């Protein structure tokens, strides 16, 4: 199962993605991979993990070595790419974490990405669940680096702008040639009154909001103190609300 979180910046998709990771761990999902695919996001901080290398770093290294002819002629580049990706995965007791990091630079990435796609398509099914934090453009999905997404969760807050971004994401998904499963719009940091108004606005945009996570003083506290999301107690309001949403979507039982 691959779940991608996306949405307008600042809506709290990293928070929701991180809390989803916690829910999956608590439900004993099995092998879990977390992918930070938003250059502006900070899954490692949210989950309290230090990351040394990113996929962008190893891709650049691979590209440089390939193009300069440093690699020996009989060297199997597919196996080498697999090794580099594995070396960029940060492992913890509960989950693995891969940060996509910097975007492509100058030059041609056709061949490099071809190798990378193969590695990713072998790697992802080895996990029982994959949780991704993506920017609104879903670059890695649209480029086919990450395939087989089952759920796309578009996070909105109380702003119309965020709703419009969610609508754009829906249109983008429709245009994609690859199958990306179903789209779920989830409201974050909204009161029940705001949620009602928001749901109405959403209907005007042909969107259906599946659920909401209410404002939580616990979340404000960890934000203020710069603590990881893992510090949120399981019975906090935000985590309980999200648990309900995930159950409704069918991500957890």
């Amino acid at each position, binding site marked *: 199962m691959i779940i991608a979180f996306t949405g307008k910046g600042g809506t709290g998709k990293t928070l929701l993605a991180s809390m989803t990771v916690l829910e999956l761990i608590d439900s004993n999902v099995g092998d879990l991979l977390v992918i930070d695919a938003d250059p502006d996001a900070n899954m490692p901080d949210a989950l309290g993990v230090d990351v040394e290398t990113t996929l962008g770093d190893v891709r650049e290294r691979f590209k440089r070595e390939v*193009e300069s002819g440093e690699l*020996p*002629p*009989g060297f199997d580049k597919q*196996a080498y790419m697999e090794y580099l990706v594995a070396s960029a995965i940060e492992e913890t007791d509960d989950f*693995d974490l891969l940060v996509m990091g910097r975007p492509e630079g100058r030059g*041609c990435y056709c061949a490099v990405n*071809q190798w990378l796609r193969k590695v990713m398509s072998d*790697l992802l099914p*080895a996990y029982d669940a994959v949780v991704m934090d993506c920017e609104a453009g879903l670059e890695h999905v649209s480029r086919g680096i990450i395939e087989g997404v089952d759920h796309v969760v578009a996070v909105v807050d109380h702003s119309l702008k965020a709703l419009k971004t969610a609508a754009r994401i829906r249109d983008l998904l429709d245009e994609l040639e690859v199958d990306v499963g179903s789209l779920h719009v989830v409201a974050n940091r909204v009161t029940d009154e705001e949620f009602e108004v928001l749901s109405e606005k959403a209907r005007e945009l042909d969107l259906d909001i599946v659920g909401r996570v209410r404002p939580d003083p616990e979340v404000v506290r960890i934000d203020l103190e710069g603590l990881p999301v893992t510090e949120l107690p399981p019975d906090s309001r935000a985590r309980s609300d999200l648990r309900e949403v995930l159950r409704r979507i069918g991500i957890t039982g």
Partner: protein
Amino acid sequence: MAGLEDLPVEVSPRYEGERIRSGDMYVELAGPKSFGAELFKVMDHDEVRDGNVEVIGPDIDDMEEGERYPFGIFVKAAGEELEEDVEGVLERRIHEFCNYVEGFMHLNQRDQIWCRVAKKAVEKGFKLEHLGIALRELFKEEFGNVIDAIEVVLMTDEDKVKEFVEYAREVYAKRDERAKELSEEDVDEFYVCLMCQSFAPTHVCVITPDRTSLCGSITWHDAKAAYKIDPEGPIFPIEKGECLDPEAGEYEGVNEAVKEHSGGAVERVFLHSCLEYPHTSCGCFQAVAFYIPEVDGIGIVDREYTGDTPLGIPFSTLAGEASGGEQQPGFVGVSYGYMESDKFLQYDGGWERIVWMPKELKERVKHAIPDELYDKIATEEDATTVDELKEFLEEVEHPVVERWEEEEEVEEEEEKVEEEAAPAEAPTLEVGELPLVPGGGLNVKIVLKNAKIYAEKVIIKRVDKEGGEK
């Protein structure tokens, strides 16, 4: 002797792709935080103790859980028909066979292997000795027709692995030397890559031992491996066919393949020429070679250089001209790897025809440029205009200068004839009609090479695709 069925863990292709996370791992062997190597070596019969499987250093039961150890995998084989040049191919199978073993993970190759043993395998009684047995049996099963004797030595002893890694590196180096010597004459198949057709629909990248893909990423060896992994993919073999012109690098099989996969847009390709029937270019090329008519030479500019070429335009503009999958005489996309080939643009004169390169590029491929020519090739420090280039080439007596002299001689002779035969103001050569060859994206194609034509008027007429005038 123990067989696969006697092992405590299963051995099957279905365990390939099994990932052992650090939490599930009993020990890690080699890898980025330790060291190790693997080697498949063809040896004489008396050097191989047939059937022997040996572990030098601690085996699993003497290892600490959660620790990391150096690791060496040494497969020795002998056989009447077993040749040294298959070592590389058979060595790649170590990766595959190791991953068949339940609870054992193997990544990468050569002196960069990274292995893990799963806790659950150790619980079942797995030892490294069993890995050795699995390797021996799988090699015999698959290559019993050529392998007469096989021995597997696994090493975890630090000093022993160090020694082995050094030895393995020497073997890899020799093997790579041999692979580098491989050329178009030595193989029957070339490869074609259509990866870039999404944006250059008529571009067919032909990959030979002498010519890597234009993007520089795919060598002939890579193409071969890629096809094996994904036979339905964008890279596949083509028959080389008869060599129609060894200098030009024109092959029957290449012409046929290019015609078929370009949808008929390109019918003929000289693999080693920029001037005639050049290979098409996608847009991904690392560098572009371009003809400079004023000096009758070829310049090369790569993506890294952002300044202007003597033509007064930078790489990006030239790249735009050359890309798109159309055959354009005078422009050809090239990779750094191709510049190192002995066949590099040999039809046009090879390095003797190269007159300009950015300084950094020149330095980068220094080892490929003949010593006597190195200082004769201008860089942006010597010339940024065609006039400066001309001056420089004359000063250093670049081989292309001889071409100019030959031309001038011909010119002088012609002038003499003209003076004798015709009155002063008559044209040297009267052209009743100038035939134009349709091609490329333009509806006209003009190649004026070494031509000295004096005419009152040159009329260029639009010609339709079928070749008839309109």
